[in-house]
């Protein structure tokens, strides 16, 4: 008789302003997922302060790990591997999670798995949708990244295109700040846009000739200039119209490139990932785009769109399954992008 044991992974995520730990069974079963958010701490600075984030991670890491282990109801000795995000992200913040994971892996005598945060975001979809499997096209949209990929199999990522300048989420945050909205700006713009007219202001859709790449800095400047000119001429600004028009421009660019990706790969599935994929309007437009092309759209629930460790545990499971483990010398890679494994 063959006894198949569940593979249990303890995963950590500290790449930015969330200290998170999760216990994941066989890649897709989330036994626990604990997130300690620092958003209220950074709000008064209008963005994430790296030194404050790193300090907070050191204070939170063990309580968060302990809570995840207790909520999962597993003994530490039952953990088969320890995973941590090793990039991209803030160097000082990443180092706390990596050092903590190394300590656990060493003390428990278990393998260590370094996980690419962006790949983790894509894998959040596997947790949400048990039936989902590669191949698919993925659109990763977050505060730090905007990328379009083809994912033909579990440990293979082919980058189709990415942003030349700002990430979509970054543009959202900058315009939110220009509109005097609180940090983080993405959800605030979305809220304000509901009562605005998306056709009120025509903002540029950059790089129409590019098939898969993105650019948001021109759009960002156009929106900032619009507000600046209005202030100088004393013209009234309808903030809701600005938010709606700006959001529409971002979503247009994202959905156009995604459509091109689906067509080029002949994909039947398109997967959204990253913090901006929590945007309701983006989901709505992408659903229509997918439907037109006969593809199915997948995205995680809002809780799995933002940074969490469950997605890191899920990604780590498939790395472990194919023998991709790291030694104790692994370092933080703040500028890590998509790498072919």
């Amino acid at each position, binding site marked *: 008789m063959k006894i198949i044991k569940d593979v249990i992974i303890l995963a950590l995520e500290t790449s930015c302003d969330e200290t998170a730990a999760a216990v994941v069974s066989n890649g897709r079963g989330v036994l626990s997922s604990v997130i300690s958010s620092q958003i209220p701490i950074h709000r008064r600075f209008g963005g994430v302060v790296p030194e404050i984030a*790193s300090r907070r991670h050191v204070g939170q*890491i063990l309580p968060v*790990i302990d809570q995840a282990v207790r909520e999962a109801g597993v003994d530490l000795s039952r953990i088969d591997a320890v995973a941590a995000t090793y990039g991209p992200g803030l160097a000082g913040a990443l*180092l*706390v999670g990596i*050092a*903590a994971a190394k300590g656990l892996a*060493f003390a*428990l005598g278990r393998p260590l798995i370094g996980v690419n945060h962006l790949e983790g975001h894509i894998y959040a979809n596997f947790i949400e949708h048990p039936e989902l499997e590669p191949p698919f096209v993925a659109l990763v949209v977050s505060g730090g990244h905007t990328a379009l990929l083809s994912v033909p199999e579990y440990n293979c990522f082919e980058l189709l295109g990415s942003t030349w300048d700002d990430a979509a989420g970054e543009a959202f945050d900058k315009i939110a700040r220009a509109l005097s909205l609180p940090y983080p700006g993405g959800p605030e713009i979305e809220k304000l846009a509901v009562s605005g007219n998306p056709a009120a202001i025509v903002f540029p859709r950059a790089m129409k000739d590019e098939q898969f790449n993105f650019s948001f800095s021109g759009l960002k400047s156009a929106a900032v200039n619009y507000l600046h000119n209005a202030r100088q001429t004393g013209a009234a600004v309808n903030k809701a119209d600005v938010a709606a028009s700006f959001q529409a421009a971002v979503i247009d660019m994202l959905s156009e490139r995604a459509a091109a990706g689906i067509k080029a790969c002949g994909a039947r599935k398109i997967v959204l990932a990253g913090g901006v994929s929590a945007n309701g309007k983006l989901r709505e437009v992408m659903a229509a785009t997918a439907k037109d092309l006969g593809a199915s759209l997948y995205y995680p629930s809002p809780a799995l769109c933002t940074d969490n460790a469950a997605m890191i545990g899920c990604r780590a499971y498939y790395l472990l399954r194919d023998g991709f483990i790291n030694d104790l010398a692994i370092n933080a890679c703040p500028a890590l992008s998509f790498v072919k494994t």
Partner: protein
Amino acid sequence: MKNSAGRLNVLILGIDTAASVCSLALYDGVRVLSECSADGGLTHSEKMMPQLQALLDSCAVLPCQLAGIAVSLGPGSFTGLRIGLSSAKTMAYALKIPIAGIATPLSLAWNLPLPGVWLSPLIDGQKGNVYQTVYEWRAGRMFEVEKTTLKSCGEALSFLAQSGRECVALGEYPGEPPGGWPKGVHPAPPYVRKPRAAVAAFLGYARIAAQDWDDPFTLEPYYMKKSEAEILWEKRRTNIVTCEE
């Protein structure tokens, strides 16, 4: 298990990543079983855990044989401190063993327990500043003469020069002073200048044996100052309040 003096084994792992040197040691209450200090080269993040693996292997010790962890808490390099402490915390947690935080200046003073002189650890505090502490070793005990304070290098050295005492400067001070070392102030030789994990383990052993340990859940480095962003934010807020007044 007994140690080399036949007493109950309390094998303590010492970790010091407060300065540029990554130092790890195993101490059993009588002997320093092994110590490894690597300065320069790879980052703490890259070298600390492989170095720990090699240290334990060299003594044929398994992680589960450790009885406690002593970790240097600073002040010092914020990143270095966080790397050492984060791994120390999770190891203590997973192995269910106590952790004891050690002040880096105290550890430095114990590098050179000599009577009759002032021992002054100077730790780089950035922007031409140092964290200065002054200790004196009398009758086998270390006394703090001056508590840890952030000051300019010049102020720290004149404080020692004006004491009229023979002083030994320890720690990672930023190079030779512009006007040379003042009369009566002597830099420690390189082999005792930097933090050593054997000292942290020695001090941690005493604390852990006395059941005076720290809570790994709440233990934090000694930052000694707020982040630049907080300092600026508070300055700006004070200015706004002053203007409104």
